[in-house]
């Protein structure tokens, strides 16, 4: 029987199949953070159930952390308490925690891959929908709710129905200035926000094969925005050389042994998918969203579509845009480069290469938030910090920050923010804020121009 990459990993993790019911799926790595874990710890405590495999859990603090003065006590009492609970829960249960200030601290989906915790062929879960990010390594990785966090605590397993299989192929040559973020925003704009519901999505084609691991993570990260529980890309030499040598990756003979196994993790020729789509790389241009879901995206050069339904009209009203208008030259006062979608070193290198020698426009507040302490260190080591600072950008300490605005990094009501994050929902970046999703390059160009601009003619 010909199998897909997804089948191969899934089958290797099925403990039992319940008749006319879900599978019991074994979980190799369970990542946790401060927001979606406390109620799960409480649940187990109340039911007197121990955590089965604490050594398979890694914790970080990211959602609710400040991006300034991380060495000081957190001012917000509720946030401080939530972080304290995470520390106590991890300590009591022998769980590794990379808390605030730890050299390995960072956004869960940035920190785990860069430490080599994420490896091909694994099953990975986290109480966060963007867990799909780890699929970039050829893993089955998906977000779970807090009840499921408790289930994994109790059994290292989950009861899950096997999802259907979807493949999205993109072949051809990407145009200058088109980044992985544009590719995924383009796909979601074409397929819609619920096209992937009930599916796991494999991304295939030379466009993904030629992408860096950072780029693949950006793509897989937003799989959930088209409704797919997860996305994945077959591991290859790019994957193996990224993983090799990282802190928690297998070493020496063990690495070679695993690599031999990882090489088999690809879809067999002729394996069947429940749904399949193909796109040409040449059709993709830098993208931007104009509405309140990630599917409401257009090319920078396009106008907002006409004849929209009632829900889309409501979205346009919220955004203060009208059907048929172009976004070019719209003044923008806020840009945010960060989040688990675009806060890796490559994102900052790309932004810095555009910004170098330029100044941000006077009207713009430009926020740069690295995904992890390690990325922050790299930004310094590579001299990007001075580029950002000289251009007037504010470089902060790592965390989820203005992606969901749980901390103080909020966009004021009514203001537009060109953001490299993943969701443009109403109020996502602060009550009344209006988010336009885009790539780090588009965000950087917006900051320099002070308005949305077609920057592609400025590229070399």
């Amino acid at each position, binding site marked *: 029987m010909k199998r897909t990459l997804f089948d191969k990993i899934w089958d290797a993790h099925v403990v039992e199949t319940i008749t006319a019911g879900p599978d*019991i799926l074994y979980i190799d790595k369970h990542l946790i953070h401060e927001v*979606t874990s406390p109620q799960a710890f409480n649940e187990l405590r109340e039911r007197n159930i121990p955590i089965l495999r604490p050594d398979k859990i890694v914790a970080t603090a990211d959602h609710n952390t400040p991006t300034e003065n991380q060495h000081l006590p957190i001012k917000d009492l509720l946030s401080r308490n939530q972080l304290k609970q995470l520390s106590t829960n991890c300590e009591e249960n022998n769980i590794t925690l990379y808390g605030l200030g730890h050299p390995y601290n960072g956004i869960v989906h940035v920190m785990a891959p860069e430490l080599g915790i994420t490896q091909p062929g694994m099953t990975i879960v986290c109480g966060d929908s963007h867990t799909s990010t780890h699929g970039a390594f050829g893993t089955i990785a998906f977000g779970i709710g807090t009840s*499921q966090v408790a289930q994994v605590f109790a*059994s*290292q*397993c989950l009861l899950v129905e096997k999802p259907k299989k979807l493949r999205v192929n993109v072949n051809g040559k990407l145009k200058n200035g088109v980044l992985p973020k544009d590719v995924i925003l383009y796909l979601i704009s074409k397929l819609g926000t619920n096209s992937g519901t009930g599916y796991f999505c494999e991304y295939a084609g030379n466009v993904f094969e030629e992408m860096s691991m950072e780029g693949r993570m950006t793509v897989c990260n937003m799989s959930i925005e088209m409704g797919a529980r997860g996305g994945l890309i077959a591991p290859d030499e790019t994957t193996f050389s990224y993983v090799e040598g990282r802190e928690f990756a297998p070493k020496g003979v063990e690495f070679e042994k695993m690599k031999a196994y990882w090489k088999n993790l690809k879809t067999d020729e002729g394996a069947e998918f429940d749904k399949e789509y193909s796109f040409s790389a040449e059709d993709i241009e830098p993208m931007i969203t104009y509405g309140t879901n990630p599917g409401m995206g257009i090319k920078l050069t396009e106008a907002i579509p006409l004849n929209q339904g009632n*829900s889309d009209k409501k979205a346009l009203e919220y955004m203060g845009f009208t059907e048929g208008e172009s976004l070019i030259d719209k003044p923008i006062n806020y840009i945010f480069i960060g989040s688990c979608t675009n806060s890796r070193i490559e994102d900052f290198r790309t932004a810095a290469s555009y910004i170098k020698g330029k100044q941000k426009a006077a009207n713009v507040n430009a926020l740069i938030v690295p995904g992890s302490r390690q990325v922050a260190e790299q930004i310094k080591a590579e001299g990007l910090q001075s580029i950002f600072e000289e251009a007037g950008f504010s470089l902060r300490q790592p965390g989820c920050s203005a992606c969901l605005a749980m901390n103080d990094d909020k966009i004021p*009501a009514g203001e537009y923010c060109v953001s490299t994050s993943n969701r443009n929902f109403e109020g996502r970046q602060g*009550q009344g804020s209006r988010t336009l999703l885009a790539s780090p390059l588009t965000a950087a160009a917006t900051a320099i121009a002070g308005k949305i601009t077609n920057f592609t003619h400025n590229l070399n």
Partner: protein
Amino acid sequence: MEKFISLTDTAVPLEIENIDTDQIIPARFLKATDKAGFGENLFRDWRFNKEGNPNPDFNLNNKKYAGSILVAGDNFGCGSSREHAAWALKAYGFKVIVSSYFADIFKGNSLNNGLLPLQVSPEFLEKLFIAINSDASEKIHIDLENQLIKITSTGESEKFDIDPYKKNCMLNGYDDIDFLVSRKEAIQKFEDTKLQF
């Protein structure tokens, strides 16, 4: 977990598509470390204006509508995995959410909390909206055992799907933890023989 067998009640219509979990419960309310108290902030930024006063245009504030059934537009619960969304809906008093489509994680979270995500066809959803809009006292009957939803005044009904395992959990108030813990031996055997990482 609370059992769910059947229900006959009025419904609150929310004719909006793609209602995401950030609208159901905004991120700034996720700082709590227990499950209680989310109901008061359900749909916070739609329910209340900037000054904190109830927004009269929002159906949850419309005295005409009441009941433990929420009937919502397509693709309900998309976005974040926060289970706080299910806790907020439950705490507010909803027992069933009806839509023509649910996001995966939200659906699972609801089922794990005894809140029934009931998926109907787009045509039946339309009928529900028409029935509730023309008479807010319209009673909707939901029978989980027979997987049936009915508009009581007209008798129009539709069968709905639910995973048989999950149905059994809802009917009996079981949750997955008890089941998984009961499979400890099989899990141990898997770890002894098939573990790769």
